[in-house]
């Protein structure tokens, strides 16, 4: 049976900070907006991020994750966004037709613009290939966060955390408050991957040891985890013989990276950048599929929800303008490419429309350093430069390139001097 598709101007997939902000911005711009979210409650991962530190950029005050989410939920509702919770987008076609399923129903929606805001998921044990048996007690940090903060389930008594990403650090403090003993945080890299303030307020406050340049080389236990083996790693990222030591624990949390959730995008023909695992986008956040936009953690992993929401706003405005005006003027304008040069891990967007007066570029550096100058070069000439007092891969950097007469080069490159 074929169902007739409903029509709308903008469909937003995902109701976390990026999707909510995109939906509100698109509706404010005059578009009819449908927001689809697979969870029963809007807000995405923010609902389980009950710690504070959100909102300083977006609202000028310190909020917890759920409070930050509630602001954007209100904003979206006030803007007149039509919300479909408990609804999963099972399919997205390059013609921007969505197949949606929800308990007891299935529907089709055709949108002039689609905003991808599905967020990301955590890397798991399987992706790390840690040897040893498969006892209970090994969780991703986000799962442990969900169980602790939302379900009132105690994950364990003596905990080791592998990876020093922010979620792992936040959970080290959280589980300490809950009465668990966090025996160690173990990080393969020679520097922490979380924000410096989280090292201070989550580890140092409680005397939790951080083993840099170390990783878990074996997991032990039959039914329940009873310990892990930790070894020092060399620059070749291999364990150094003779450095192994055991840490008894009943719980191992993995905070070893996030991966944009792009299955739906891929099936719609969206091209992905291997350095971000997110879409290639232009300065309007449009992917290679005309009318399909991407923002937030599905585009690239953000360290702050504030930035994800801001990016959502920009993508939402662009999606509305594409739906309301852009279809008449045709698809994509001519593009200049933006590439990551010396010392830069990735750039977003990876292209900018020629004639653009202003292009905002988000990027990450490749390694920690101090007092480096980041510059944006156009055909060898510096269009913008900024000194980074502290350059760190954990901290996204944004720079704006302004071209009064409109961008008229073929290639921009971001690099460290």
């Amino acid at each position, binding site marked *: 049976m074929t169902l007739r598709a409903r029509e709308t101007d903008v469909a937003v997939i995902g109701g976390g900070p990026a999707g909510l902000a995109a939906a509100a911005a698109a509706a404010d711009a005059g578009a009819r907006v449908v927001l689809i979210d697979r969870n029963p409650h809007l807000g995405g991962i923010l609902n389980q991020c*009950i710690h*504070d530190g959100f909102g*300083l950029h977006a609202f000028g005050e310190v909020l*917890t994750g759920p409070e930050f989410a*509630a602001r954007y939920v209100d904003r979206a509702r006030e803007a007149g966004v039509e919300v479909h919770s408990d609804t999963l987008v099972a399919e997205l076609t390059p013609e921007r037709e969505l197949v949606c399923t929800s308990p007891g129903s299935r529907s089709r929606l055709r949108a002039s613009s689609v905003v991808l805001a599905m967020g990301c998921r955590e890397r798991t044990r399987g992706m790390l290939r840690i040897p040893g048996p498969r006892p209970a007690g090994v969780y991703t940090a986000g799962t442990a966060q969900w169980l602790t903060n939302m379900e*009132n389930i105690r994950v364990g008594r003596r905990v080791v955390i592998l990876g020093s990403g922010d979620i792992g650090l936040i959970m080290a403090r959280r589980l300490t408050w809950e009465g668990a003993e966090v025996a160690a945080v173990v990080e393969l890299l020679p520097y922490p991957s979380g924000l410096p303030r989280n*090292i201070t307020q989550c580890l140092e*406050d409680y005397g939790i040891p951080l083993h840099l340049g170390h990783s878990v080389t074996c997991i032990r236990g039959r039914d329940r985890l009873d310990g892990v083996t930790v070894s020092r790693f060399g620059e070749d990222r291999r364990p150094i013989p003779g450095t192994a030591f055991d840490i008894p624990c009943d719980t191992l949390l993995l905070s070893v990276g996030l991966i944009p959730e792009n299955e739906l995008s891929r099936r719609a023909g969206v091209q992905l950048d291997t350095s971000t695992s997110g879409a290639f986008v232009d300065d309007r956040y449009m992917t290679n599929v005309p009318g399909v936009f991407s923002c937030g953690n599905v585009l690239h992993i953000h360290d702050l929800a504030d930035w994800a929401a801001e990016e959502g706003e920009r993508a939402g405005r662009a999606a509305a303008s594409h739906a309301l005006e852009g279809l008449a003027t045709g698809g994509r304008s001519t593009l200049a490419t933006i590439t990551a040069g010396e010392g830069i891990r990735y750039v977003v967007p990876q292209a900018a429309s020629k004639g653009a007066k202003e292009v905002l570029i988000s990027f990450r550096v490749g390694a920690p350093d101090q007092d480096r100058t980041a510059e944006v070069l156009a055909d060898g000439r510096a269009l913008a430069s900024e000194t980074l007092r502290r350059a760190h891969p954990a901290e996204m950097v944004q720079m704006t390139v302004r071209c009064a007469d409109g961008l008229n080069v073929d290639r921009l490159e971001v690099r460290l001097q």
Partner: protein
Amino acid sequence: MTRKKLTCILCPNGCELEVSHSGEPTPETIVVEGHTCPRGIDYAIEELTAPKRTLTTSILVSGGTQPQASVKTACPIPREALFAARGELRRVVVDAPVAIGEVVATDIAGTGVDVVVTRAVGRRLNDTSRPER
């Protein structure tokens, strides 16, 4: 002269502060460098004299659409009161519905600070309020 390095925790920038003082640390004797906004000075002085943190945790909700509601101390409390405050909140159960900002405990752990809800939890109507999957 006592010198110390601190990481400011007030915003994601996490400025690295160089703090020094001769004699006892007091607001008059403490010298702060490395801050990029005035709040860095306040943070360093507080950190050396009476460090404070905000407690964020969850409490039990009865009759709600979810088993727990997240809460926070309305402002930072002395660091040494964190565990006592968490302990007191373990015994708090509120009836749904609860709204953001609702006070669920006052003078937590003797600090004079309120604890407020950070996520609204609705009342569970009955078990069929959500369609079966």
